[in-house]
């Protein structure tokens, strides 16, 4: 189709790469290290083409490959017993974990970060964070039913905090409300350590029948690969214009936006459209497009499948016709999905697209070659083993050590409510301390935020703010449902990463339990500074060790999560902030317990130590 635009580039084909081994490639600008680039050359047995370089550079980034955390994250998979796994239908590794709710129902949930996009453009950064996590949930075959948003901002009186916070909250509301997903909880912490690195974590929950679970894999030779949803634009590839080296003519690449603008309406339509596809069993495999866009979707679908895949990149519908192949492969344009459809379902698939007025294009098909082949106007520009892109990225054993200052930090005790004051002793002092506490930005009412979120849509919200956990009914007949709570305490974790992470888990676990649910599964978002700093790496290693140990003790598995590193300004990292989400189950949500006193005269007990 777009052979016209195809001609505009003088392609760096695989054939060309084979005969021009010495062409300089901008691997460093794309974030690859020398050893990583050397690995790419070794894997391919030749230099990568510009398009291949684009794919490896995004897929081997920290964000997509978990290269610094992988060795530690293994513990989540290792420290589990058979008993812990009994309700786990899909574990770590897929887009989101799936837990058995009973009666043929399953629930999937996951938490992710959208921290740095929010710093740059708070509204859109936070909004697209919701959009991204919701697509993860859809791609499991589920109907998304709720979202949550643990947030961390800088000091409440810093001038930039208002910009970030107002924008982020409006963006989360703007996107989530438009999707018809009740927001059932979150957190809000102000602390100057997050001034330059606010944390916007987004959690989504979805439900499905067991038979509807979908996995991201491309199987069955001859099945067709389709891209649907929004058109592909230059979003999120700001740095990739250096890939202009892949076109050897003089036409300057157009400006590439550094931020993405979300289109919640497009995503809402995409949700309904996907659910209709699932209902008709019209897709064999499906994958959302998030960071790393088509690079990620094609390589993951292909490497999780049993064969290979061949696609024609000029078939991708573009918003910006000047995009180069590498840019198309890297684009992070929102609101897109990729699916594998068997030939007999093509007509039915297209009918669903037409009904919802969703654009789509057929890109290629599943093969049995074991290779991922991407062509540009018939010329091969990518020819790789998809596993090497999606799964066999670099893994680092980064050095870590307990910081020298940790002892001093722990020895620095805090004595009173007002800094440097003594412990309150008189009733008046106690009262003043109490008032100071409840009025503090981190303890006060969160209404300003929660009033901007729709908690009623769907008609199944049994608990939301100000309760300790959000509770959603899944089945109207039986009252089957779930509870979710998220918690984290950066200051505790800074003082003691091992126990701090455990405290976060324990708090979320308690919040779910006190709502009346039985805790079942954990998802976590590990927000840390640079893994190249041994102090930070120690915090990360300790937090993961603590969390995985505590999961063993509590008997609930981690089913998925996300790691967000490099949250630091200069050499100053944020406090280590592992946000932990716990999911629990209700046989009947009618039995859920709201927090707060319900009636006069009830007795008050304090339980525990």
């Amino acid at each position, binding site marked *: 189709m777009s052979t016209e635009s195809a001609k505009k580039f003088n392609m760096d084909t695989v054939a060309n790469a084979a005969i021009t081994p010495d062409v300089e490639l901008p691997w460093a600008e794309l974030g690859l290290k020398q050893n990583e680039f050397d690995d790419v050359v070794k894997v391919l047995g030749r230099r990568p083409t510009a398009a291949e370089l684009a794919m490896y550079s995004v897929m081997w980034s920290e964000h997509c490959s978990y290269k610094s955390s992988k060795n530690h994250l293994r513990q989540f998979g290792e420290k589990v017993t058979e008993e812990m796994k009994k309700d786990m239908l899909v574990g770590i590794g897929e887009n989101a974990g799936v837990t058995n709710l009973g009666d043929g129902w399953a629930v999937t949930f996951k938490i992710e970060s959208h921290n740095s996009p929010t710093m740059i453009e708070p509204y859109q950064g936070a909004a697209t964070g919701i959009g991204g996590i919701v697509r993860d949930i859809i791609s499991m075959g589920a109907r998304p039913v709720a979202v949550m948003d643990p947030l961390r901002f800088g000091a409440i009186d810093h001038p930039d905090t208002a910009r970030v916070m107002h924008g982020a909250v409006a963006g989360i509301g703007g996107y989530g409300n*438009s999707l018809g997903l009740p927001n059932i909880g979150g957190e809000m912490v102000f602390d100057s350590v997050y001034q330059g690195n606010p944390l916007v974590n987004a959690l989504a929950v979805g439900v499905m029948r067991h038979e509807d679970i979908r996995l991201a894999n491309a199987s069955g030779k001859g099945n067709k690969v389709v891209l649907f949803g929004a058109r592909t634009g230059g979003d999120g590839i700001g740095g990739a214009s250096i890939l202009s080296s892949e076109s050897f003519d003089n036409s300057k690449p157009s400006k590439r936006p550094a931020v993405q603008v979300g289109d919640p309406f497009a995503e809402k339509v995409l949700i309904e459209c996907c659910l209709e596809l699932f209902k008709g069993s019209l897709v064999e495999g499906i994958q959302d497009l998030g960071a790393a866009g088509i690079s990620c979707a094609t390589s993951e679908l292909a490497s999780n499948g049993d064969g290979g895949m061949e696609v024609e990149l000029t078939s991708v519908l573009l918003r910006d016709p000047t995009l180069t192949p590498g840019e198309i492969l890297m684009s992070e344009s929102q609101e897109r999905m990729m699916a594998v459809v068997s030939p007999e379902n093509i007509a039915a698939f297209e009918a669903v697209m037409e009904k919802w007025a969703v654009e789509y294009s057929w890109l290629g098909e599943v093969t049995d070659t074991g290779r991922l082949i991407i062509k540009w106007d018939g010329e091969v520009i990518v020819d790789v083993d998809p596993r090497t892109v999606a799964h066999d990225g670099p893994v680092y054993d980064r050095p870590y050590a307990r910081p020298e200052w940790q002892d001093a930090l722990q020895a620095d005790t805090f004595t009173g409510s007002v800094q440097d004051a003594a412990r309150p002793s008189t009733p008046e002092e106690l009262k003043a301390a109490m008032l100071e506490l409840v009025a503090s930005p981190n303890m006060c009412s969160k209404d300003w935020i929660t009033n901007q979120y729709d*908690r009623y849509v769907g008609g199944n919200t049994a608990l939301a703010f100000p309760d300790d956990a959000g509770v959603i009914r899944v089945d109207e007949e039986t009252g089957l449902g779930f509870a979710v709570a998220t918690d984290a305490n950066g200051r505790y974790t800074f003082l003691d990463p091992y126990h701090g992470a455990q405290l976060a888990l324990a708090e979320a676990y308690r919040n779910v339990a006190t709502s009346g649910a039985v805790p079942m599964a954990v998802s976590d978002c590990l927000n840390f500074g640079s893994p190249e700093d041994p102090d930070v790496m120690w915090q990360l290693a300790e937090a993961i060790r603590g969390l995985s140990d505590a999961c063993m003790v509590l008997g609930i598995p981690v089913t998925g999560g996300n790691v967000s590193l490099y949250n630091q300004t200069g050499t100053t990292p944020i406090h280590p902030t592992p946000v932990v989400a716990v999911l629990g189950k209700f046989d*009947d949500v009618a039995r859920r317990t709201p927090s707060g006193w319900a009636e006069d005269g009830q007795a008050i007990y304090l339980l525990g130590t």
Partner: protein
Amino acid sequence: MSETPLIGGATLAPVDSRLAGARIGVVTFPGTLDDRDAVRAVRLSGATAVELWHADTELADVDAVIIPGGFSYGDYLRAGAISRFAPLMTKIVDAANSDAKLPVLGICNGFQILTEAHLLPGSMIKNDHLKFLCRDQVLRVENNTTAWTNAYAAGEDITIVLKNQDGQYIADEKTLDALEAEGLVAFRYMGGNPNGSRRDIAGISNAAGNVVGLMPHPEHAVEAGYGPGHTGTDGLGFFNSVLNTLLGDK
């Protein structure tokens, strides 16, 4: 600790074949969000919910229509602006204006669509505080003679859910005066105006009383445990009202 569940199950209204015979259409546009809630509300009232799609060209013999809330077409351009041109909307407008006076209820985005379609006067602009606002909202029933309000007492206060960003009702003074004079203000906000709406107007009706639009959401207040204050079911009156109308009880 009492053993009583704190919230009830999805208790259906007593089965009454006359009620079940009433077919209430619920329209879905791309971007509609509260259609499933509206369907549930219809079901809980005992009537039969009929799902309608914006691109349909027939009204499927429904006896009444609900245009539910949401962000049809993302609220892009203006809330309701694009939906108003849907094929089904032409049918709905004709049927509402016909002698049969099809009862039509527009909730939130549905209200916005009805004003864009000129079935109801005035329009909605951004809330005066410019933010999305979700809260439990007390309304006074000002007119209990419409197809959708006759189950309430005149002057009754009800609590349902308010949630919107473009909820500020505006119209010129002449229109507002006429609405007041003819008793077409159906609901007024109590306990503080949440969005700057002129004269605290939360909902209005047409002169015939068959078309009603309001910003707050009765369909989110029909089942104990899932509505305002964990117990509120004040929204059920809307659906009972239209059944009264259809069955000729009022």
